[in-house]
């Protein structure tokens, strides 16, 4: 059997005395598109951020593509890695944020080129060509020279997706990618994500877009109160939710 792209075992996360994630088990196969649903405060964004160690976990473990995230195992213990080594492990994982977080002092093209040139040390000419292709893929060739402040929210988020893709990731994490957008701009971002899913990218998407989850995702995972309540194919979870908490949530958003 192939190594799963993401394997979380008994993940636990606490802030002080507040348990935000408890015994999370989740396996995502390569090529799978999974959406994390749940009310705000359910821990879905926190879990997503744990996958690339933006949040350190307090128990259990997460592996991406077979290697442990943020730790090194030896003598039956997990040793925390140095920040530089964690950074290296993140190169395979792209992340898209709710607030885009584009670099405001760089143009769209420079945003996309930054990490391949600086982190991977690739030649600028090659990266530029590839970056222009990526901007073309998200439909923004004509905005390459624009600074983020001159772009609409939807355009900024599409640049952010191109920026993440420039590192040629094997896994893409989306943290509520359309929540900060005006309603009429949501579609253009979802279109890009749909295209990515069709190309076989492994994706984990925290979202409130039920329509997108139903149509594009292979599996939906419903979280509440820091635990996974239920998961399954979109049709099953949306049409016949087993758990009362899932039913209550869906009745509000559907």
């Amino acid at each position, binding site marked *: 059997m192939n190594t799963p792209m993401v394997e979380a075992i008994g993940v636990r996360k606490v802030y002080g005395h507040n348990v935000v994630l408890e015994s999370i088990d989740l396996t995502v196969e390569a090529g799978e598109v999974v959406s994390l649903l749940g009310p705000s405060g359910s821990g879905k964004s926190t879990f997503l951020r744990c996958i690339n160690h933006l949040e350190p976990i307090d128990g259990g473990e997460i592996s991406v593509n077979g290697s442990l995230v943020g730790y090194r195992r030896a003598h039956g213990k997990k040793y925390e890695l140095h920040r530089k080594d964690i950074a290296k492990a993140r190169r395979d994982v792209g992340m898209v944020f709710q607030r885009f*977080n584009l670099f405001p002092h760089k143009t769209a093209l420079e945003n996309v080129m930054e990490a391949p040139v600086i982190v991977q040390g690739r030649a600028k000419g090659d990266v530029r060509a590839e970056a222009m292709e990526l901007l073309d893929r998200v439909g923004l060739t004509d905005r390459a020279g624009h*600074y983020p402040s001159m772009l609409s929210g939807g355009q900024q988020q599409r640049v952010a997706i191109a920026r993440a893709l420039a590192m040629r990731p094997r896994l893409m994490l989306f943290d509520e990618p359309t929540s900060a957008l005006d309603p009429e701009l949501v579609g253009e971002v979802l279109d890009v994500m749909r295209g990515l899913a069709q190309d076989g990218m492994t994706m984990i998407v925290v979202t409130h877009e039920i329509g997108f989850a139903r149509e594009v995702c292979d599996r939906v995972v419903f979280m509440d109160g820091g635990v996974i309540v239920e998961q399954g194919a979109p049709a099953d979870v949306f049409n016949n939710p087993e758990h009362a908490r899932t039913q209550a949530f869906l009745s509000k958003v559907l």
Partner: protein
Amino acid sequence: MTVELTTTPADEPIVRLRHPWRWVAVAVIVLYAAVLVRFLVTNDALRWDLVRGYLFETSVLRGVVTTLKLTVVAMLVGAGLGTLLAIMRLSENPVLRWTSGIYVWFFRGTPILVQLLGWYFLASVLPEISLGIPFGPSFASWSTNDVVTPFMAAILGLGLNEAAYMAEIVRAGIGGVDPGQAEAAEALGMSPAQSYRRIILPQASRLIIPPTANETITMLKQSSLVVVLGMLDLTGTAQAIYSRNFQQIPLLLVASIWYLALTTILTYVQMRLERRMSRGAATSRRPRRTRKGAQR
């Protein structure tokens, strides 16, 4: 009887509100400006001939150079140490945070004049400076009087004091960058150093440069305090000359003209820097041409 309507509301002229007091203010200012000009031009005691003669006199020029040297070196010490203190202040290590905090507390909390004199008289309490293992053997030692020359005392006094202010400026600059920026850099696989250099500092510098330019202008003038150490900076030179010829005001005018000229240049540099730093900040900026666009 009916009044014949000659104009419609559409083409009725509008009479703007008049502001007579503005003209009164202008008249008052013009009047007093004229009085000032007459005082400056007709008062022979100002000795403009002396001012002109001393403006480019060798010792005055040497004083200008000393003032510039003090400003530049003190600002470099202040900016370097200040950045270090700011990074310490933002550290996760509480001992580093406290050390930085106590430094700023002390150097901001005592007058710079007191600090300058303190460094100058350091030898009276610490006659020897030695390099070695604390509480252990020392490898080399020097007489404090040889090390702490008046120039050294001036740099220590001005620079270490400035570091306290720069620490606050740099800290505010770094703190003013959206934490999402560091996260985005991290998520792209950048090391902490890469993220600082490429993403955080360029954005922080936009917040750091304007107040730093202000500090430089302040330093230019504040460096005149070194006259208490007997240094012949611009102000010290003016003092030395008027103590011989008793032409205090003409020589203070010479110094003021130089200070104003240097401040004007620094203000211009500050303006240019701020404009360059605002890259990407203003929405009205035109897009930068990409190679593709340029080929068209």
